[in-house]
C-alpha cells in the first residue's frame, strides 16, 4: 500500500473510531439511567410531591422538582430572550458592519459562556443579598437567565450573522427602516435558528444545579410563589444520590431519566418547529 492511501486509511479509522466512541459514551449514559432508573419510575413519582420520609424511601414523588424546574427555566428563558434578541439585532442590524464594538461584544459573550455555573450562582447570591431577596423561584430564575444569556445570545448571533447583508440592503432599498428590516426580514429569515437558540439555552438551563444551590434553594412543596424557594430536578437528583438508601438512589436515576426525557422532548419539538418555520427562509 502506498503512503497516501495509508494516510487516508489511518485517518478514516481515527474518524470512525472517534464517532463510535462518542456514540458508545452516549449510549452508556442513556443505558445507565434507563437500566437503573426505569424500575423506580412510577406514576406517583410524576404526580406527587415528596411526603415525609420520601428521602428515606417512603411514599411520594418529585412533582415539586419537575414543576419547579419547568417554571424556573421557562421564566429564565423568557427573561434571557428579551435581552438576547435585542442584543443580537443590535449587533447585526443596528451596529455598523464590522465595527469594533460588535467584535468586543461577541468576545465578552464568549468569555461569559465559559464561566462556570457555580460562579453565576455566587453572583446571583450576591445580587440577592443586595436586593434583599431570599432563596426563591425569582432569584433562581434571574441567576439562570444570566447563565444562559451568553449561550442564547451567541447561538442567535451565529444564525443572524448568516443573514446576507444584501438581503438587508434589499429591504433598505425599498425604504424600510432598520427596525422594520430587523423584525420583518431578519427575524423571519433567522426564525428557525432563533428558536433553536432559545431551546438550546432552555436545555442548558434546566440541567444546571450549581447555579441554583444558593439562589433557588430547595423545598418539598410544589412551587407556589415567585418569592418562595423552589425545588429543581438537578438538585433533587443530587439530594437523592447523597443518601445511602438504595431505593432513594434508584429514584435519583429515575429523576435523571425524567430530566433526560424532558430535554429529549425539547430537542424533538425544536426539530419539528424548525422545519415548520423554515418555509419562507431564503437560501
Amino acid at each position, binding site marked *: 500500500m502506498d503512503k497516501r492511501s495509508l494516510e487516508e486509511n489511518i485517518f478514516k479509522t481515527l474518524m470512525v473510531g472517534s464517532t463510535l466512541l462518542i456514540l458508545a459514551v452516549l449510549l452508556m449514559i442513556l443505558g445507565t439511567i434507563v437500566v437503573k432508573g426505569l424500575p423506580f419510575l412510577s406514576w406517583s413519582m410524576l404526580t406527587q410531591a415528596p411526603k415525609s420520609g420520601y428521602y428515606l424511601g417512603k411514599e411520594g414523588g418529585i412533582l415539586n422538582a419537575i414543576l419547579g424546574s419547568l417554571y424556573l427555566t421557562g421564566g429564565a428563558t423568557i427573561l434571557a430572550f428579551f435581552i438576547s434578541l435585542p442584543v443580537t439585532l443590535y449587533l447585526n442590524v443596528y451596529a455598523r458592519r464590522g465595527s469594533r464594538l460588535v467584535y468586543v461584544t461577541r468576545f465578552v459573550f464568549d468569555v461569559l459562556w465559559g464561566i462556570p455555573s457555580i460562579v453565576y450562582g455566587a453572583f446571583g447570591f450576591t445580587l440577592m443579598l443586595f436586593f434583599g431577596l431570599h432563596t426563591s423561584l425569582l432569584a433562581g430564575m434571574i441567576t439562570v437567565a444570566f447563565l444562559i444569556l451568553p449561550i442564547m445570545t451567541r447561538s442567535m448571533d451565529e444564525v443572524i450573522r448568516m443573514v446576507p447583508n444584501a438581503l438587508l440592503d434589499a429591504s433598505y432599498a*425599498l425604504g424600510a*427602516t432598520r427596525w422594520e428590516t430587523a423584525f420583518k426580514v431578519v427575524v423571519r429569515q433567522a426564525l428557525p435558528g432563533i428558536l433553536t437558540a432559545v431551546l438550546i439555552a432552555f436545555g442548558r438551563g434546566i440541567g444546571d444545579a450549581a447555579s441554583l444551590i444558593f439562589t433557588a434553594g430547595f423545598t418539598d412543596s410544589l412551587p407556589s410563589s415567585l418569592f418562595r424557594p423552589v425545588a429543581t430536578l438537578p438538585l433533587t437528583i443530587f439530594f437523592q444520590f447523597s443518601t445511602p438508601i438504595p431505593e432513594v438512589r434508584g429514584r435519583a436515576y429515575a429523576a435523571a431519566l425524567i430530566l433526560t426525557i424532558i430535554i429529549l422532548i425539547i430537542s424533538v419539538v425544536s426539530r419539528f418547529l424548525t422545519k415548520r418555520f423554515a418555509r419562507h427562509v431564503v437560501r
Partner: protein
Amino acid sequence: MESNAHIRVNNLNVFYGKDHALKDISVEIPNKKITVIIGPSGCGKTTLLKSFNRLLDPTDNVKVTGEVFVDGENIYDPNIEVTHIRKKMGLLSQKPYPLPMSIYDNIAYGPRLHGEKNKKKLDRIVEHFLKTASLWEEVKNKLSAPASRLSVGQQQRLCLARGLAVGPEIILGDEPTSALDPKSSQHIEKRFLELKQHYTIVIVTHILRQTKRLADYVLFLYMGRLIEHGPAQEVLENPKQEMTREYIQGIIS
C-alpha cells in the same frame, strides 16, 4: 446652474477607512435613459451606485464627502430622511434576494411599509408590477408560495417588480444579470429597454456586450476616478481618453 436631472453628483469622494474608493466624481445622470457604469473590478462602480441611495451607510468606517442630489435634494445632508430617498429608487443586486416571505408579500412589502393597507389596492399593485416584470403568468396561481422556491431568473424579475412597487422613478442595477443564465439575462435586459420610457435606469456591469446592447449613456471609472462619460456611441466607438479605449479593447481589465 439648475438642472432637472434626477441624480446629480457633485465632487463625491468616498473613503473606506484609509482607502480612497471614489475620487472627485461629478456627473449628471440623464433622465429616462439607461446609464451604464463600466470599469474594471474594484474601480468603484458598485460604490458609486450604492452612494445614490445611501446604501453605504451600514458599512463601518465609511466617509462620504461631496454631494449627491436626488431631485434637487442633497441626500448626504444630515437632516435628510433616508427612507424617503431610498423609496425613489428600485435596486437590483447581483444575486436576487427575495425577502423571506411569499411572492405576494414580497411585492406588497414596500407599499405596506409606506402605509398601503387596502387589500384590493395591494392586489392590484401586486398584479400590475408582476405583469410589468413579466412574471405574472408564471406565478399567478401560486402567489402565496414562498418566493425562495422560484428559479433565480424568476427571483430577479420578482425583485424588479418589488422595487417598482414602491413607485420609484429610478432603477439601480448592480450587475443585475451576473447570476442569471443567458435566457433570464435576456429577459431582464428586455425589461430594462421597455422600462426606460418611464424610468431613469443606472446599471453597473462588467460585460461590454451588455453595455453595447443597453447603454444610452456610459460612465467609465478607473481606480476610483471618473475617466470619461458621455453618450454611449461616443464613448464606446470614439473614446476621447486613452484609458477608455484600452479598456474597451480589452487591454486593461
